[in-house]
């Protein structure tokens, strides 16, 4: 057990060390979501107008973009595994007296910290976009982002545990991660989509994460605009006739994340 924890700590330590030393990663990961927000926002805002009580399209998209920032950066856990394998460093890790599951957890934890930091950087945009932000909300948001990030990191490591090349990993990312993001309601509300799309979205665990983060951000804005969270808030997910609360949403993501991390640890331990 000690070996698993020490493994987790050293691996996470290195991930952070690497991140701190590569400053370009910090700005580049900020640029992409910003681009989405500005271009999509400018493109659709006037077309769509006010979506519900007091929320315009950019405000609607903003929590989703924060989630997306965290997601795309969390997947880096997997890229980092593939990278280490390609450059040989993985061998140094694999032969060290540390638990294999510790390696998986360390990779996931390391990239989760990085991803959450980058998600948190996005918060500076809140005042500009007119989204109200209180310390209380930030306090709730950070743990939520950690849960979302850990589960996607788990997915990243799981995919990477058998991948040999960065190109291959890039392909898989495009085939799995992008659809997951598009179907999670980052760019459009899911309560007005064709039934087939709604059905797919509901088996996508990211949907619940995005929804929880959106609930956190927008419920206060809507309430301030005169609506009540109960009836006026039209973004909440409904699964089998049950409207998901923020906590329930997060628990779904958590369950998904724990399962993924366990599978990833198992697959990773199996390899020679």
């Amino acid at each position: 057990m000690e070996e698993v924890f020490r493994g987790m700590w050293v691996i996470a330590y290195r991930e952070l060390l690497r991140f701190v030393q590569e400053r370009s990663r910090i700005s580049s990961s900020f640029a992409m979501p910003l681009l989405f927000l500005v271009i999509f926002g400018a493109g659709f805002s006037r077309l769509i107008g006010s979506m519900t009580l007091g929320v315009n399209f950019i405000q609607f998209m903003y929590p989703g973009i924060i989630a997306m920032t965290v997601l795309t950066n969390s997947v880096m856990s997997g890229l980092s595994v593939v990278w280490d394998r390609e450059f040989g460093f993985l061998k140094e890790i694999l032969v060290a007296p540390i638990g294999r599951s510790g390696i998986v957890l360390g990779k996931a934890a390391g990239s989760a910290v990085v991803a959450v930091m980058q998600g948190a950087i996005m918060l500076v945009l809140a005042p500009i976009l007119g989204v109200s932000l209180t310390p209380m909300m930030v306090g709730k948001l950070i743990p939520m982002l950690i849960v979302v990030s850990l589960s996607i990191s788990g997915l990243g490591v799981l995919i990477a545990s058998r991948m040999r090349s960065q190109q291959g990993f890039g392909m898989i990312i495009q085939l799995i991660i992008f659809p997951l993001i598009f179907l999670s309601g980052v760019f459009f509300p899911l309560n007005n989509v064709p039934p087939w799309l709604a059905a797919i979205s509901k088996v996508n665990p990211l949907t619940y994460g995005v929804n929880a983060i959106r609930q956190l951000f927008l419920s206060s804005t809507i309430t301030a605009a005169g609506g009540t969270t109960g009836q006026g808030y039209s973004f909440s997910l409904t699964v089998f006739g049950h409207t998901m609360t923020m906590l329930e949403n997060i628990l779904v993501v958590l369950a998904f994340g724990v399962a993924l991390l366990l599978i990833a640890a198992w697959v990773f331990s199996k390899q020679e």
Partner: protein
Amino acid sequence: MNIIEVQELSRNFGQLVAVDKVSFCVVEGEIFGFLGPNGAGKTTTINMLCTLLKPTGGKATLCGLDVVKQRSEVRRCIGLVFQDPTLDEYLTAEQNLRFHAYAYRVPREVREKRISELLELVELSDRRKSKVRIFSGGMKRRLEIARGLLHSPRVLFLDEPTLGLDPQTRRSIWDHILALRKQHNLTIFLTTHYMDEAENCDRISIIDNGRIIALDTPDKLKDSLGGDIVTLKAVDNNAAALELKEKYNLSANIQNGMITLNIPQGEKFLPKLIGNFQSPLLSMSVRRPTLDDVFLTLTGHAIREEEAGSKEQARTMRRRFGR
């Protein structure tokens, strides 16, 4: 005392038998060499001994610990330098060493001191804050040797420690290896396909097609050939070989258009030969045997034959086992 004991160790990759029931022992404090062409099973054996690969048969112990059942304990008592670099190039030399120290639980009190000492030993002290990315091949290898020693292992594994390095760097790596043995009473297990490097070993095990075909000190292996190597080139090699057989009862080996013979005191044999040899000869030479000759005699092919394709082979091997 035997620090490594291997009994009938085997490893198959599907149909391919990479290592075929090898047995040997390594004595504490010696430099033990695994010599053989690329693809002979050297790296596969090392990978099994250092717990990276599970054997498909047989048993191996290191420092009395079973490589399958006591993986973590084995890992703590061995240091490793692989064929391919396994450094994080985006970190500094010091950071690479520190990561290793954390992973191997080197006590805090000795950590920084050992890092400094080892950087001193491999002459990289002035580069400790440089990113590994800008290091030359030899510097990287030296840093890896330092890293392999950081947790005070009892056995250091060096898999082709000088592969792809220039002659001067090879020499300097070897100076470091020999110095280490003296200072730390370290057991060093290395693989190589360079004959001249194998000469530095206390004992050599020659491996071909996954089997150990000889194991002894370099001198004894050379003596086992029974004398000097006489090389002849005749107009008709086959006729000359026949004549050697009939007149002197010598069994000749024809290889690459040359006849080679093992003869005690070869320099005294040549004058006798010149006197009454019928077949016309083009050239002749005498030399002390090398490990190459030992290999040739034992396997019927030279270790260098596979050299041409060795880069490509090394690459495929790397792909298969390395990563």
